[in-house]
């Protein structure tokens, strides 16, 4: 019991330490360029959490991060590194728009599941291409997913600008989706109590639900079991009769599918159309979310919320400081990721504080 508790606390230490290191390093930089670190911190916090609307925006920014983080985490669990969430999300958004424009009159009960299904299938197919190449031809998924991103951008651009363009606007965007597809902002329905006047919408609930489903799948189901084997012990699985190549393709399909779903908040919950470049690097930040959250459901929620808060809080930096801009948020994120990456070092530091846990490992080592 004591060991278990220790291990759990131990698991919490690296991400929190990483957050601490990332934040302090960035604040030191702020101090170096002549801004009071305390003031910067205060602006960050009050900008992100200072009112119902601000909290709403923070949550709104966190929503797609939950899903892209989940997407990357799923792939990680299966031993794959999906850098293609950005492209998969882009195509997911395009798929939503295409469905929403092609069948505009569907009632929401049909429309929303249809749009979500289309986004999942499209993003998933895009991911599965990389999975298939990996399983059958052995080409590393990092390479293929990066390259597929570029193809995805081009394809999305073509569909947005040439096939489903919004005739009323000069912005590179599709026409509006039908009314049944539009997820209303929470503010309208609950009198600004939740989310204030922000575009926060029910996709947050949907995303959290997906995180919970992810947790359940990996804890309790055969699918999660096979995916974990493919990631953690592929040879064991191979000899036990698990078709690892199939699991790899499936993992990339699901990972890509989840990334496709990440478009739900920006497309169906906010713009009601798909703009070129609407993803805004959310797919890449998802990698940081998965790393910081260590692929665990609670960790992903924590990391996505944190990054949402940082994104929103940093917007006010432009306004309220002289010498730092919102780019500081990216710097903080990068420092956090670096700190997480060196977590092996942090863990051993932690282990050295609890020598007995070392000996347990030492005993079995030959």
């Amino acid at each position, binding site marked *: 019991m004591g060991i278990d508790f220790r291990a759990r606390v131990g698991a919490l230490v690296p991400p929190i330490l990483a957050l601490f290191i990332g934040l302090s390093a960035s604040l030191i930089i702020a101090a170096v360029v002549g801004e009071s670190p305390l003031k910067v911190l205060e602006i960050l916090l009050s900008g992100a959490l200072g009112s119902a609307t601000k909290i709403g925006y923070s949550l709104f920014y966190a929503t797609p991060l939950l899903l892209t983080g989940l997407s990357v985490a799923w792939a990680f669990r299966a031993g794959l590194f999906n850098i293609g969430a950005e492209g998969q999300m882009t195509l997911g958004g395009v798929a939503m728009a295409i469905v929403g424009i092609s069948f505009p009159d569907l009632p929401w009960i049909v429309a929303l599941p249809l749009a979500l299904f289309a986004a999942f299938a499209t993003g998933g197919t895009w991911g599965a291409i990389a999975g298939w190449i990996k399983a059958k031809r*052995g080409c590393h998924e990092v390479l293929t997913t990066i390259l597929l991103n570029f193809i995805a951008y081009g394809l999305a651009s073509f569909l947005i600008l040439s096939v489903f363009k919004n005739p009323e606007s000069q912005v590179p965007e599709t026409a509006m989706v039908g009314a049944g597809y539009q997820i209303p902002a929470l503010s309208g329905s609950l009198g600004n109590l939740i989310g204030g006047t922000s575009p926060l919408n029910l996709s947050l609930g949907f995303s959290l639900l997906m995180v919970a489903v992810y947790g359940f799948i990996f804890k*309790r*189901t*055969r*699918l999660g*079991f096979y995916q974990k*084997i493919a990631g*953690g*012990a592929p*040879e*064991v*699985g*191979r*000899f*036990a*009769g*698990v*078709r690892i190549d199939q699991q790899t393709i499936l993992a990339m399909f699901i990972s890509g599918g989840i990334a496709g779903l990440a478009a739900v908040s920006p497309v169906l919950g906010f713009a009601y159309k798909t703009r070129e470049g609407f993803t805004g690097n959310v797919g890449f930040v998802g990698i940081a979310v998965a790393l910081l959250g260590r692929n665990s459901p609670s960790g992903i929620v924590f990391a996505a919320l944190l990054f949402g808060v940082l994104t929103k809080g940093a917007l006010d930096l432009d306004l309220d400081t002289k010498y730092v801009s919102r780019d500081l948020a990216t710097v903080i994120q990068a420092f956090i990721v670096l700190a997480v990456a060196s977590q092996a070092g942090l863990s051993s530091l932690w282990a050295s504080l609890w*020598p*007995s846990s*070392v*000996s*347990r*490992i*030492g*005993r*079995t080592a*030959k």
Partner: protein
Amino acid sequence: MTSQPILETRDLTKSFGSFTAVAGVSLEFATGQIHAVLGENGAGKSTLMKLLFGLHRPSAGEILLDGEKVSWRSSMNAIARGLGMVQQHFSLVDTLSAIDNIMLGAEVCRGPSLVGKLDRHEAIARLEKLLPSRSLAVPWDALVGTLTVGQKQRVEILKLLFRKSRILFLDEPTAVLTPTEIEELFSVLRELKAQGRTIVLITHKINEVLHICDTYTVLRAGKMVTRGSVSTVTIDHIVESMIGRKLPDFSVDRHPTTSDMVLECLDVKEESRAGRRASGDDGTLSRGKLNDISLKVHAGEIVGVAGVEGSGQSHLVEVLFGLRNVSGSVKILGKDVAALNSRQIRDLGIGLVPEDRHHQGLWLDESCFTNMVIGIEGRFLRGQIFQFRDLEKTTAEWARDFDVRASSLDLPVGRLSGGNQQKVIFAREVSGRKPKLLVCHQPTRGVDLGAIDLIHRKLIELRNSNLGVLVLSSELDELLKLCDRIYVFFEGRVVCEFARASFDRMRIGAAMTGVADGH
């Protein structure tokens, strides 16, 4: 013989936190003798060696070399003072010649050291002066990658001689050798001894080693249990000290073989094109490729496959489990497996204890529970969802069948001892899968003596309950003890087949090196 030991330890102790790996060990290695340090995995042998070589600092106690107290600052000190070690896994550069490997790090140069010309002739001349006889020589100019395992081991020993080592430590020297090579090694060791060098063999293979040693020291759980002169001890006594209890007598208890065929391979041959599914090991030498393999396993018999490692055993296992494409026919329980995928083959009722426990057999980070359901998780699923209560109850019973000893089955299996890890695999593949055919590849490698005994008994028991068992092992003694029939593999072919009545250690050993003399 000599009154003063060359190397001595007094109450040597090493603790890691609350765990004591070596507890008050006092040893004496007399000059010019061969010493055996025996002990199971985890008994403290490697920690002791690391202390002697300065890789760990002792928590207490002292080390004496030539009667004088030493305190190593690093392993460089120990090596400079004449200690040398041949690791179980060789550290050689395959793409360099033997002489270059021997010189590496202690080069003989003409001219300034960095830009000077390597003087190989001088090095060879020096070496040959050191050699007790020609038997230790290797082809100096041959690339190490082309040498046999026995020759590579000699290169390692020569490296030590070249560096003027006085005490040679050999870690599990026989593990990778064929019986003939073992004999060659022993004659080399005797010659070195005659030269006055001190040799320490670290091993858990008592039978093979003991007869060339002068003294033995047994470690158990970090403590020195017993030591003495080999001439006055029985093997049973040493085994008992190593495992801390007496092993009951082992009886193979013959049992009539039925005629039901559980496995039949006919003319199994690997196509020249690399199999599509064999992406795991493209570096395998062509000598491991299967070439017209035909073999049979009946229900109720244990069939052994003997051979030097890499003679096709690993490929055969992959073929049986649908992981490698071949021509010819493989029938398991009467069904041709060519059209089946790996899962379908497994579901025919075939269990596997794979060669590489850590890589192919177990998922080390996961619990014993999890490991015991890999591949047979279906029976614990309702819908697609795991029923943990049933899973934990049932797998705990399986673990009891094989006497898995763990403080909790929730522990990551990587924290268990090698023997208990292997038992977890057996629990899964036998109690869990309830197979009709069991394939065991190196079933007792890196496993303690107690667990070996248990595994051997279980295999006999299974055979007697009419299971067909195929054992692939590089431990010839194990096969001789268990099997009803033995096939000998050499370079991917079956070179001979022996029935139990005609088992002969030396003849099988010769066949393993390609010297077949009929059946």
